[in-house]
């Protein structure tokens, strides 16, 4: 899923202050937690309260989209709603914001979220973690299903670097050393020989900007 975090309210208030009639467009898609109708409504309430303290009255309309990055679906969801709207505040990831901006080139489209990474969720611990850099050249089969591109602070394809202490990364003692995790996983699977294989430099040409679905 795409992991996003709400922008601080004062920043959002600064963004929307030039406008009065604002459509808040949520996204039910892959943002986690989903920034759907509830977040749109809660945000409208918070911004209305914050606006009052600044002496500014806003009128909000709230809605949501199934997948804001899908221009076809988003067009059909938002087109009937933008009458009289001066700006759209999007709760989607950056891809969603840009989709709406392309659909409505005359309307200012503002981001309500900061997009952080493609992550996995540990619900028990309440933590979302970076898991995929969308590099286009997946090597998880060689590394016991643990991605060193996102989880090793140095992005090493041939680890470990030797800097880890007690299994923790020398760059961030809170973080496990990805290469020690890979070692343990491969050892468990009896495939430790893979760690001796030298992995060639990443194929950066594989990073695609455009694909046909």
């Amino acid at each position: 899923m795409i992991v996003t975090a709400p922008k601080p309210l004062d920043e959002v208030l600064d963004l929307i202050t030039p406008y009065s009639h604002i459509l808040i467009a949520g996204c039910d898609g892959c943002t986690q937690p989903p920034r759907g109708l509830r977040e749109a409504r809660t945000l409208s309430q918070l911004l209305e309260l914050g606006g009052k303290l600044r002496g500014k009255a806003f009128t909000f309309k709230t809605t949501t989209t199934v997948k804001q990055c899908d221009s076809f679906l988003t067009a059909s969801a938002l087109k009937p709603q933008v009458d009289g709207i001066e700006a759209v505040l999007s709760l989607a990831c950056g891809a969603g914001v840009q989709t709406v901006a392309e659909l409505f080139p005359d309307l200012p489209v503002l981001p309500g979220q900061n997009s952080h990474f493609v992550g996995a969720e540990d619900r028990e611990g309440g933590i979302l973690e970076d898991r995929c850099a969308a590099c286009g050249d997946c090597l998880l089969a060689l590394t016991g299903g643990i991605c060193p591109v996102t989880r090793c602070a140095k992005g090493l394809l041939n680890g470990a670097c030797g800097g880890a202490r007690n299994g923790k990364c020398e760059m961030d003692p809170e973080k496990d050393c990805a290469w020690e995790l890979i070692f343990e996983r491969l050892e468990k699977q009896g495939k430790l020989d893979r760690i001796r294989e030298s992995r060639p430099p990443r194929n950066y040409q594989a990073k695609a900007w455009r694909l046909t679905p």
Partner: protein
Amino acid sequence: MTEPVIEERAAVRLNEQYCSRCSICRSLCPFDAITKDAETGKTLLEIEKCQVCGICYSACPARAIGIINYDHDSLINYLESAKPEYDSQALVIMCKGSTPDLTEVERLFGVSTFIPLSVPCVGRIADEIFLTAISMGLSKVYVLACDEDYCRFDRGSPIAGRRILALNRLLEQLGYGRETITLKRSSLKVKVDRDLCISCGNCVFFCPYGAASLESPGGASFNLASCKGCGLCVVMCPAFALELEHWEKERISALIPRLLSEMKPPRILVFRCQWASFPPLDGKSSPNIRVIDLPCAGRVDAIHILDAFQKGVDGVLIAACSEEDCKQEKAGGQAQRLVAKLRERLSQIGFQDRLHFCSVAPRHYDEFDKELEQFSQRIRDISKKERA
């Protein structure tokens, strides 16, 4: 809890002088709060374990147990004043845990006018309350209890059932006809609107009872037999696809302006878990304060808190049970995290001091009042500062 126990504050007390050591209370207490001293044989009440269900009070043959609020005298006083007010000979005694809206009560029992009496657990209504009500001319008594496995006090609903069975037999022998007291059971549970469900799985993760599951395709699905009506899934649903019977979003939203119209500034609205404090039946409320009781603090919804602020409430207090006391598998703890998150966002616009979370228990009858007074003082100070 670090505060020393002060006996005078206890909501349930045992008077040793009257106690005949029959142990009925000990055998009925669902929380093992009543024990027998091995040496002296005396009955002991550990107030820290007590959840104030009132079952022991209603069953003690020696009247050795005293209880604050919903005791014999205040129940009878209520009936005496309510009888002319409602002008009805029907009495409906309902457990707070399963009380639907009153039109639903009408439908359930087929009565159009009745005296409503909502109590924390029908298991605390003693035989003599039923008998006094009937002798007062309330010729038809209806009891709405929770389903047995839904009872917040574990044994309250089954005890009420047995008591009513025995009383009906007795009343029939006395010539009152069959079933003078009618017992029905109900429980308030989650409702899902699958058209709105976005299959995010939040309900599956947050449900403390494992009642929710996700079907693909189709969305959220609930095993209603397992649902215990805490409402946590409802407030965690990002798509407004869930509702809790009787505590629907719109119903709570509609209460806010109605309560606000009766209030004077500074206005304080309390969202309270109905098990965290048992207010007196005839309680007079200050014009500054109104309370919305919820089935569990798990049903406290950020939407309603913000709604209250938008409509001009000066302060919002959330009163929950502590995690140990929570009748809903620690759903109250989730509520605390939710309120903390909302406070963090409110701090970005300078509203954080107007929202406060506290946990209280009915075992010390003044606990809630103390928290409320402290918070009221804070809100008065903020209002004063604003005017200056």
